[in-house]
């Protein structure tokens, strides 16, 4: 009874949800439409006499033209020959960041989930405090650090800061997963004479696989999303540039190739969108399970 809605309430809920989703998806829809329109159509405006408002028909004409095609999706590879390289770089960087981060996250999260020890809560708080100092504040010393090791203009210039700023969230997320694995299983392994490392490898890790996947995807999405700042600051080599920085090549001195730029953006989003589509159920459930108080 409690969860039943009247017809009017139902209409209200669906309308509100529709509005909410429209706001969230509008830029993507508009990007897609722009990518289909030839540049001439994109840059044409209905003639509106001074003092009159644009008519509805004129307004709608921006959404449709006979010449709409997927041409931009072919031309973009010619305009920016490096495009495949940029997309590869984005995927490669995000993948590298994910795997390297996990190497640091897994042992630390295990320690926080399983043991009570001196300095536990203090160090955990310190890890989380890192969230306060995002990359933008630390750019100068990071620039110096990377230059000191000769890592500027390499993949490492984008991987190292990426890893560092994703470790704290990774630890926090994985910790909540590992805490749900019953301790008795480990005790049983101990009783049978297994070492701690053996237990971690053979008992805990297999059970933690779902959690690891969720944390891995969360890190991947974060790494894919945050490439821009490090890329424009620490890397000038076009061979290592990720897509968000490479897209700027569609902006010329004379004109901006909006249709190709939008096409390239949408294609560049596909890898992360695919991962999200396949995993969204686990991801949403996984990300939120840690946020709820027991």
């Amino acid at each position, binding site marked *: 009874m*409690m*969860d039943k*809605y009247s017809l009017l309430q139902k209409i209200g*809920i*669906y309308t509100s949800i529709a509005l*909410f989703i429209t706001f*969230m*998806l*509008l*830029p993507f829809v*508009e*990007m897609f439409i*722009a990518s289909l329109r030839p540049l001439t159509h994109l*840059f044409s405006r209905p003639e*509106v006499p001074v003092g009159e*408002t644009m008519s509805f028909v004129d*307004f709608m004409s921006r959404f449709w033209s006979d010449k709409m095609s997927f041409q931009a999706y072919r031309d973009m590879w010619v305009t920016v020959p490096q495009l495949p390289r940029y997309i590869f770089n984005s995927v490669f960087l995000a993948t590298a960041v994910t795997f390297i981060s996990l190497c*640091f996250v897994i*042992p*630390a999260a295990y*320690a926080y989930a399983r*043991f009570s*020890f001196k*300095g536990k809560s203090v*160090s955990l708080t*310190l*890890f989380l405090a890192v*969230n*306060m100092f995002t990359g*933008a*504040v*630390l*750019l*100068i*010393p*990071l620039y110096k650090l990377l*230059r*000191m090791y000769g890592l500027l203009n390499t993949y490492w210039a984008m991987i190292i*800061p990426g890893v*560092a700023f994703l*470790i704290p969230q990774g630890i926090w997320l994985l910790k909540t997963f590992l805490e749900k694995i019953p301790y008795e299983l480990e005790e049983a392994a101990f009783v049978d004479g297994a070492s701690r490392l053996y237990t971690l490898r053979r008992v805990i890790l297999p059970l933690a696989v779902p959690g690891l996947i969720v944390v891995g995807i969360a890190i991947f*999405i974060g790494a894919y*999303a*945050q490439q*821009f*700042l490090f890329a424009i*600051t620490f890397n000038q080599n076009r061979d290592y540039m990720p*897509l*968000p920085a490479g*897209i700027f090549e569609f902006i010329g001195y004379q004109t901006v190739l909006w249709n190709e730029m939008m096409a390239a*953006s949408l294609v*560049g*989003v596909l890898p*992360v969108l695919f991962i*999200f*589509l396949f995993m969204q159920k686990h991801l*949403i459930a996984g*990300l939120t399970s840690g*946020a709820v*108080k027991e």
Partner: protein
Amino acid sequence: MSNLIQMFKPKTKAQTTTLFAWALIAPAALVMFWVVVWPLYETFRLSFTNSTLGTLMGGAEYVGWENYEKAIGGRKFPSIVTRTFYWMFLSVGLKVVLGLIGATLLASNIRGRGIFRALVMPPWIVPIAIGCFGWLWLYNGHFGLLSNFAEMAGITDGPYSFLAYKQSAFYSAVVTDVWIGTPMVTLFFLAAMQGVPRDLYEAAYVDGASRWYRFRRITMPQIMPTVISMALLSAIWTFNSFEIIWILTEGGPRGATTTLIIDTFKTAIFSYKFGAGATRAVLVCLLLGVFSLIYLTVLGWVGKKYGYAGVQK
């Protein structure tokens, strides 16, 4: 030597555990030290020097408080700080309100809510820079959807470039920031709402409490810890937000969207004034630190007065 080793050898089981735990944490801690702690110290040190591109690796002179005097005494500094906080409060406020509305809608017992939940996520999944390219086109004065729509609806007289005027550029950047930040806030509020025990609602329902009353008196107090911690986290991120403003306006027009982070980036990376840039970075950290302290203290009070759990542990 062997004495030294003897000294650190664990003697009790608790010590063994502590040692083992720290051995597991050490790699992550070292990375943090290398990429966050040392740079923080270095930023602080550089802020007292006149370091530039040529003297970054060494040789910069110590200039005392000069950078701070120049930065704080600068003509634009007060307006930049005010703008940064206004940007933060406005954006976070909107994200929390929209997040609450969105989460309530998505928590309602309707058909298709699984799909709706997934459809809300893209702004958060997609790289920030790419979402911003979409908004760049939306805000375009002659050919963008928003300007065209405003013309048709008679709101504006002729084309209107949203990013070309001081006021509209600022609020346009806020809208984009809200767009990017809302999905995550919504998701966590939704999770918190689903964690509220059902019997609370059932008891209230039996007693004849209205939906709105149940939201105000059960949902809100129950999810308050999540709201508070998300608001703080979101505030820190918004304060530090760089890409959105940079791609949309690069801090313009005429400084209308220049927040502290943009100012820091411009000074340090674009003009290679590393000393002066570091000073601004230190000021960012200080302001954020003070803000967080005040926020947490106020919450402590409110928590005592109204019996909230305070910040989520």
